[in-house]
């Protein structure tokens, strides 16, 4: 079955179609047979470190070729150079660690990427750069050197460059890392608006972002997709496994004290426990198991 993000237009050509994607780095299997179809909307990619998220995003961004499997992006095959160029023309990519030219101003950096995106007309390109920077909330610092910008501001510069050319497919790897709460809210607002008419794939550790933004979630671990569904589907995984108690339950796999002073326990609930409404975070933690628990701890 071909799922689309909105789950409505199942007959339309998906923006992203992956079939049995495999990727190894020496003896490490990064992806083991990933299949996925995506249409318009925002997809959240959740998984612990080493789950294969970044590898998957790099394949989607056409900067990495899979060892096996079939990739179709925007209806084209990135293995073919002409198709790859066409895909890149309609693709925005924000890597996990984009790197910056510290002596460039924010404007110069985004402008430079715009040039690399074949925006040759100087006047039109500058207008587009200004638009992207405004979207990313960077208008006030356009002429500042990147070395003078905070980490959060730099993430926004990276975001701005990915928005150039109003891409049909936007791939954002950890876009909210380093952003303060206000910036994260602004980010959510911007991405949710952009996601109305294009495909956005957001890799993140922030389950709240996924819950707030994404119509669909993919939970990965060990190079495989563990679950594909809505944020509610992820939360439902934990239904019956989350309970509140006055103290930390020794049978719980993970427990923490809430703001109300009670303990939220996750695991196999004991009989008679006061079950709680599960969240996406609870479901994610149960899905990915010990690794996520240790990361969360």
């Amino acid at each position, binding site marked *: 079955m071909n799922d689309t993000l909105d789950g409505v237009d199942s007959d339309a050509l998906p923006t992203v179609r992956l079939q049995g994607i495999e990727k190894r780095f020496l003896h490490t299997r990064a992806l083991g047979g990933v299949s996925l179809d995506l249409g318009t909307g925002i997809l959240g990619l959740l998984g612990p470190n080493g789950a294969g998220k970044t590898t998957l995003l790099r394949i989607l*961004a*056409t900067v990495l070729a899979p060892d096996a499997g079939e990739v179709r992006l925007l209806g084209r095959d990135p293995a073919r150079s002409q198709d790859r160029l066409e895909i*890149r023309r309609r693709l925005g990519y924000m*890597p996990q660690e984009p*790197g*910056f*030219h510290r002596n460039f101003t924010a404007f110069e950096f985004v402008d*430079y990427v715009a*040039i*690399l995106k074949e925006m040759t007309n100087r006047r039109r390109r500058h207008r587009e750069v200004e638009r992207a920077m405004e979207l990313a909330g960077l208008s006030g610092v356009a002429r500042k050197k990147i070395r003078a910008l905070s980490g959060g501001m730099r993430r926004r510069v990276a975001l701005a460059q990915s928005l150039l050319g109003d891409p049909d497919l936007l791939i954002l790897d950890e876009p909210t890392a380093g952003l303060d709460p206000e910036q994260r809210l602004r980010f959510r607002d911007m991405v949710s608006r952009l996601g109305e008419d294009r495909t956005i794939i957001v890799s993140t550790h922030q389950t709240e972002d996924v819950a707030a933004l994404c119509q669909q979630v993919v939970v990965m671990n060990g190079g495989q997709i563990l679950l594909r569904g809505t944020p509610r589907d992820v939360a439902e995984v934990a239904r019956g496994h989350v309970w509140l108690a006055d103290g930390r339950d020794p049978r719980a796999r993970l427990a923490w004290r809430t703001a109300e002073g009670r303990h939220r326990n996750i695991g196999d609930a004991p009989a008679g426990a006061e079950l709680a409404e599960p969240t996406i975070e609870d479901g994610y933690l149960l899905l990915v198991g010990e690794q996520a628990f240790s990361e969360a701890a």
Partner: protein
Amino acid sequence: MALARAEGRRLLRHPIVLASIPFCVGTFLLLTWNQAPVLSRDDILTGLALCPLSGAVFLAAHLGATRSFRHGTDELYEGTVTTPAQRTAGHLLSVLWTIGPSVLLVVAGLLYLVALRAVGRPDPVELLTGPSLVVLGGVLGVALARWWRAALAGPVGVVALAAIEIFLVWQTSAGRPENDPNPVRWLAPWVPIAISGDPPRELVVRPSGWHLVFIISLALLFGGIALLRAGVRAHAVAATAGALALILVAGSAQVRAPTAAQRRSLADFLVHPEKHQVCQIRASVRYCAYRGYAGWIDRWAAAVTPVTSRVPAPARPKDVEIIQTLVVYGSDVGEADLQGSPAASQFGYNPTEDDLGSAITPGNQWGRGKYEGRDELAMDLIVAAQVVGLPRRPQDVRLTAAEARRILAGYEPSERADAAKQIHAGGAWDYCTSVGQARAVLALWLAAQATSRTESTFRGVLARDPYGIQVVRSGSDVNVRNGQDFTFGGPMQGELATLQYELQTFNFPVQWSKTEATYALQLLNQPTARVSEALARNWALLTRPSTTTDELVQVMGLRPLPSYDEQLREAGVSPVHAKSVIRNLTDPANADPSLVPCR
């Protein structure tokens, strides 16, 4: 192209590139500072002057091409439409943006020289060499970035390029004859006119056209290699192969030694100078200069006319000639090419044998600023010596039998027989001393008063090496009483005697003494018109060889210089020491046996 434009702009704004421009300007100013500009020579220097820019563009282009690696943006750029090959091509093309500023610098240099009354015509090909070196530097920087991406690679590359330049130009020619330097030097990025000596551009075969093609081909070759490395195939292979072919053609053409026909053509400048020179008569003096230097006649006349015009009209000489003679030393013209031309005597390095006639023969260099004053004074000293009747050439200095015997006595017995072939009664001698002769004072004054520059040069020379005893002060302890802390620099004014070499004239025999020079300085301190009038009144007497300096001092009312005795007493030297010093100074046995009086 948009990428090339953006990178080009960044390249030009790069701090290293901007910082190199003052170095280029400084290098050019330094190279041309002391010389009256000659466009046919200084056009070559524009290439050297742009070498700092070339090195800077090399560094900046390397940093630009490795920027994405060093700053970790490779992955981001990978996701854009532009391929690594296109990015490499962009960096390579960005180097072309340096052509404009390079050409501007060259044009500014030329305009500067023109403003300084430059002579000659520049060779457009030579002028393009500098900008092409800048482009080559940039291309090499981008190419290096395809192999070695560390920031350190740039400086290492620049040092390597400088080493290649020095090795090819200077080391490969080391130990070879000046007139036959290694043609391999033409494989260097910039090639000077000569490895040694100061030959004029006119006497050197420069395959500058082929060299320009060679440099451009090198840029194409390394650009092609960089593109190959970046993944471009068909076009890069074609460009690289084409560039390689061009390099072979241009490289082999430029390292070819000058042909006999080329050498003969150069030699014609010397064998038949009349075909290549323009002559003018100014104030009874005949001036001849090669066409490329015709503008210098004004400079020469400006220096010489104030000398001849001070000579009373009846005594004014009619035979003073200033005829330019190009310096052969270090050029591509060999002795055999000259076939008995007077210029061939330059190869003998023996002024007594030269055949250049009595004309004054400035070479292909003329100073600027204070150095113009030195050249003017050198020329004026020869002219003035000629008008007061002092010998003009070594051939005019004839040894007496006693002088020949005295000189020969200084030789080792085993060498004496050989030396006697040249040193004999009636034979010519390299130099003579004008010490004690009134006409020497006259000549020195005539030369010194000619222009403000000659006067200032003359005063400077005497200030550096004045007449008489100098007390040497060593720290605060001035102990002249034991006779060890004073010196006497010798009676002759050495700097005045060597000025002629700066004029590239090697056959003027007159040596000047400090005594006559100091009396000339006294005359210089008096109003010129009054001195001129007095000299005119006494011209016949003062130019007579037998008239002594002491007589001139009386006639002109000069203040006699203190004797050694007076100077030593003034310096506080004890009479006992003074006596011994004077004995040493005046003992004929201590005199230079090779000094013969000018007659």
